[in-house]
């Protein structure tokens, strides 16, 4: 059981700042995702935690003990690499048992432990194969078993699904979550796939050029993002420019597209601030009979595409701006139609405007 804290981690390469004060913490048994586009610092953070890189400043602690100067081979962390990094000259069993060689574990226990780990990742009967005789998904399971067999204090996964095809990705993703929860291992998980991060994480850290933009639960990241960047990265989003008229305890009276609305939002906003209103497509619905009394906005359908389970629509508002939304599959929508849009205001979210 390990509680992990990362505090103000900084790493520079010459003039480039790769990490700029990254702070995270994981309660025992939690899975924390580091989410962001390539170059945002998520892998660098993971490699610092693993001990492959040493940060210029900042601290990493496990159960309140700093490990920042502990070499990687004494950190007791299991690492799963993007390309698996299985030792090509060793069999599956030898790969999985490798970490046991360096621990005071009687030889007689190695066999059962290896077997157990392989059973955990549902990979039995292949113990004597060489890695190259396995499929990508199987290799990934071996890598996972190898990292878990040493009963690590922390499990680090670096884009573990990046090299798998879409179907396998789903399967292995659930396996990783299941095994992580079963063993109660704290885990850091690096990914650039927001769906993956939201699906399996207890908390997600969305990273942006070396900093943590937001660190919260998947639900908060999606529904209550700290800024436009986070909202954009976590899913389809509409933004409307707004102005705060009045603020009280996380609720705001705002002016947006010629209307005055009452919405929840980021607590730090004050009256007079310019802000952005986030409207997720699923909190919008079409009023087909033109504008109804419920409709908050009116506009013209500028694009409509049938996707099977839904229809993707873009509506140009009379007051300027475009709203994307998903309409039910069986209503008939055509470009050029005049429509009204209803908004579930409880699911709207007001964020400060961040200049890029």
């Amino acid at each position, binding site marked *: 059981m390990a509680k992990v804290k990362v505090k103000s981690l900084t790493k520079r390469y010459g003039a480039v700042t790769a990490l700029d004060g990254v702070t995270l913490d994981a309660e025992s048994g939690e899975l924390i995702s580091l989410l962001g586009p390539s170059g945002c610092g998520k892998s660098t953070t993971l490699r610092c935690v693993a001990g*492959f890189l040493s940060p210029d400043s900042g601290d990493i602690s496990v159960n309140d003990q700093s490990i920042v100067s502990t*070499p*990687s081979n*004494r950190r007791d962390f299991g690492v799963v*690499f*993007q*390309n698996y990094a299985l*030792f090509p000259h060793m069999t599956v069993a030898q790969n999985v048992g490798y970490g046991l060689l360096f621990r005071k574990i009687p030889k007689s226990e190695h066999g059962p432990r290896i077997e157990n780990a392989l059973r955990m990742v549902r990979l039995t009967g292949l113990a004597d194969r060489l890695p190259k005789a396995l499929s990508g998904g199987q290799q990934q399971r071996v890598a996972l078993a190898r*990292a878990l067999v040493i009963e690590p204090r922390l499990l680090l996964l670096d884009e573990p699904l990046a090299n798998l095809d879409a179907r396998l990705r789903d399967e292995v993703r659930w396996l990783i979550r299941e095994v992580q929860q079963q063993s109660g291992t704290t885990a850091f998980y690096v990914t650039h796939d927001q769906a993956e991060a939201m699906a399996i994480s207890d908390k997600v850290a969305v990273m942006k050029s070396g900093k943590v933009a937001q660190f919260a639960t998947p639900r908060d990241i999606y529904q209550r993002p700290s800024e436009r960047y986070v909202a954009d990265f976590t899913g389809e989003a509409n933004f409307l420019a707004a102005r705060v008229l009045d603020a009280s305890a996380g609720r705001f009276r705002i002016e947006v597209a010629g209307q005055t609305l009452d919405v929840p939002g980021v607590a730090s906003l004050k009256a007079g601030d310019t802000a952005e209103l986030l409207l997720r497509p699923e909190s919008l619905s079409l009023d087909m009979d033109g504008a109804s009394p419920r409709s908050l906005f009116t506009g013209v359908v500028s694009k409509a595409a049938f996707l099977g389970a839904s229809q993707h629509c873009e509506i140009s508002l009379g007051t300027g701006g475009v709203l994307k939304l998903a309409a039910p599959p069986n209503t008939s929508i055509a470009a050029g139609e005049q429509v009204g849009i209803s908004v579930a205001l409880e699911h709207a979210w007001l964020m400060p405007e961040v200049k890029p």
Partner: protein
Amino acid sequence: MTPVSEKRGRLARISFGALILLLYVFLLAPLAAIMLASFTGGELMRVPPQGLSLRWFVAFFQRQDLVDALLMSLRVALVTSVVTSIVGMMAALCSQALSRRLAVVFQISMTLPLLVPELLTSIGLLFFLYQIGLAKTFIGLQIGHILIAFPYAYVSIVAALRQIDPAMEEASGSLGATALDTFRRILLPLAAPGIVMGAVFAFITSFDLYTISLLLKPVGGNTLPLALFDFLTYEFRPTAAAAATLSILLSALGVALIQKIVGLQRAF
């Protein structure tokens, strides 16, 4: 294509094929000539041989001076290949820890003995060994061979290490292995083909060196190429062909070994 140009195309292909064949004959003729001549049953070193026999191989092994030279060459080559492999491995590990720009400089420095003509290296070493009192000694000759063969071992090992995914080392370290464990259990086995290839290259290079041996040879000692040169200047007999055939077979063994462990295409 019209029939005329098709005909011309075929003619071009055939003449190109003939040219290539001729070039390969040119390339292999001297080696073939030696091997044929060494198996002659007659008295003269001639191709085609007069009858087949192994008598000149027997004659070679009855010449104490030539056998001594062969043994000395083998011994020097063996020491060279062991020393260059170890020093080369160490240097290759060092190059991995260097920044990219420094690594380029290091790489060029390490291959310097390959870039400086053997003649110049030999002359410099002759003076230097004389000044430190090692001229005309066995150890002086050995140093010269190690120096010239070193790049062959180094380059092979560096290439082998470069093939290894850096994540291998990280994976091993994260599982609790010390640097020494990782070297022994991961790097060494994975780089083994490259190391063996480098050792073979270094061995054969040393075995074949002439100029540096001429300048640095110890008093009373001769390597096989030196003995062979002298033999050829004074007695032009098939014994020399037998000696040369032995050295060709040794090289062929080396080529076969390299093919078996890494494949020729990757080696050259």
